[in-house]
């Protein structure tokens, strides 16, 4: 399942990631717009199984383990789509270095001023039948969201995931 994509925005600095996010938004935004208002960005719902093997309070780390795989994404506010800075994103997965439930498979990072986050981690490998990652955003002020995105291919070395958070 592909997570909801980000809406087009005009970033202060045009990077490749911004271009990708914009391109993805052009194709993926339809499902996010509620019929009531074209400017309303719907919150990302928690995915089934998203919270499995979640360990609350994973530490903010430079990278998880030896790295080699990039988990990237955007965190936006529902409704107006404003980027949310300083949001803590927790990430865990079954990787070449450990099982999902292993504490060392868990780590967290913060979003920057543009609501972007990126964290390097070991290569995700298929577990329980699918190559997938887990992400959580359980900061105060917004409703908690747990995601369980799939890798399009088990050989992918990055995954881009977007959160649209609903103020609690």
């Amino acid at each position, binding site marked *: 399942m592909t997570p909801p994509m980000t809406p087009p925005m005009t970033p202060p600095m045009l990077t490749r990631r911004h271009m990708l996010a914009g391109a993805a938004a052009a194709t993926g935004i339809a499902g996010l717009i509620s019929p009531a208002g074209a400017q309303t960005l719907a919150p990302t719902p928690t995915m089934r*199984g998203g919270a499995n*093997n979640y360990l609350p309070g994973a530490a903010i780390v430079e990278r998880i383990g030896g790295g080699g795989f990039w988990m990237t994404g955007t965190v936006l506010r529902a409704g107006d789509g404003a980027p949310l800075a300083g949001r803590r994103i927790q990430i865990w997965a079954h990787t070449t270095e450990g099982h999902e439930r292993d504490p060392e498979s868990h780590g967290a990072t913060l979003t920057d001023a543009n609501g972007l986050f990126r964290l390097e981690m070991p290569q995700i490998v298929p577990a*329980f*039948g*699918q190559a997938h990652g887990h992400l959580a955003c359980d900061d105060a002020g917004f409703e908690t969201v747990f995601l*369980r995105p799939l890798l399009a291919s*088990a050989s992918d070395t990055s995954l881009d995931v977007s959160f649209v958070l609903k103020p609690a």
Partner: protein
Amino acid sequence: MRQGPFSGLLIWAVLSAAIAVPLIAAGFSPQLQWRDPVYIVAGFAGILGMALMLVQPLLAGQYLPGLTPLRARRVHRLIGASLIVAVVVHVAALWITSPPDVVDALLFVSPTPFSVWGVLAMWAIFASGVIAVYRHRFGLRLWRLAHTALVVVIVAGTIVHALLIDGTMETVSKIALSVLVAAATIRTIARLRPWARFRR
């Protein structure tokens, strides 16, 4: 069916290969290096269970040379019991590996599309074992119909379950085993015609 000694040997050799090849191929899976022993056992219990499913219809349909009908029936029961053990080991070891994922699967709320098929097949295997124990309380026809219906759920559920999983099974051997299990099951059901009434 008249068969010489060599054709009998050939059937047993092909059957042994059909069971051994998927297990050996899975032994070379790159995914094994990133798994704990318990998780590895879980996977192989599943593969072994699926491979044993190939033997069951061949025993029921009297396709295997060198076995008297009574012997074939006893082996069929023994393998049936082994299948239940394999399923229990498969699920228990997965539970140890990741409890919440197994709970989701058993409650039919898993995000993975293959879980529901595996869980359906699991309950059908357990039910099959229960009605096999109490088969004398059923009429012969009802027992045969019920067992066959459960077998259809078991075989179809297991094949779909296996094919949708990105796991340790090697793809070609997985598809080949699936085709063999389905073909053996269909052929045996067509031969035994459990819906037919017995003439006394």
